[in-house]
């Protein structure tokens, strides 16, 4: 498994690299990778001639919308559909 990862897009950074930050920084399956998925994605995109820009933005969850979505998710799919059809009639 390790060899397969090392040969992949994230291979160069992954070889012999073990983070000290605990298991949360280690890749799936405890493979010992410390290349983040984002970094791997960037390498793949760059190999295709693209790049990925990332920007930090303030995160402000909309609690009212989240509460509404939570309520919707508690309904069965057919109930969600019926609710939409009722809303169309209003």
């Amino acid at each position, binding site marked *: 498994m390790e060899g397969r990862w090392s040969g992949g897009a994230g291979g160069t950074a992954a070889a012999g690299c073990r983070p000290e930050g605990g298991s949360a920084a280690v890749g799936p399956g405890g493979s010992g990778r410390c290349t983040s998925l984002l970094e791997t994605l960037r390498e793949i995109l760059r190999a295709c001639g693209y790049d990925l820009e990332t920007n930090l933005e303030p995160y402000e969850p909309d609690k009212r919308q989240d509460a509404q979505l939570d309520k*919707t998710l508690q309904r069965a*799919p*057919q109930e*969600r*559909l019926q609710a*939409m059809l009722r*809303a169309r009639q209003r």
Partner: protein
Amino acid sequence: MARPPFDPIAVLQALDAEGVRYIVVGALGRVIQGSPELTDGIDIVPSMKDENRRRLGAALEELKARRADGKPLKLERDLGRQPMLELRTTAGELKLVPEPVGTRQQDLEILQTTRRLIELDHQRTRGRGLSIER
């Protein structure tokens, strides 16, 4: 302005009655997943296998489907010639999307099988299916 008549349940029932294999996508797909939005039509991705096309044709006859642009509907010719075939039926707007952007038909076949697996699992574990009841 009054919204046009739309009965997605009738469309789904007509498709299911003929055994059509399809996936619901677009706004209605999002509504079923929990998105709080309104829609006036149903978009489906049908399996493009010959037998399924035949079944789809039968379901569309049942729904008295006609092309939104007024041209005569010839399913064998029209389906797959354009990215989306927009139809009007007795139950409202129906769009056929043979191959949504970013997908391949073989992926869709897998998804359709997966959908059926989820339905069966749902029936088994909760004693009721995903079928929509009036």
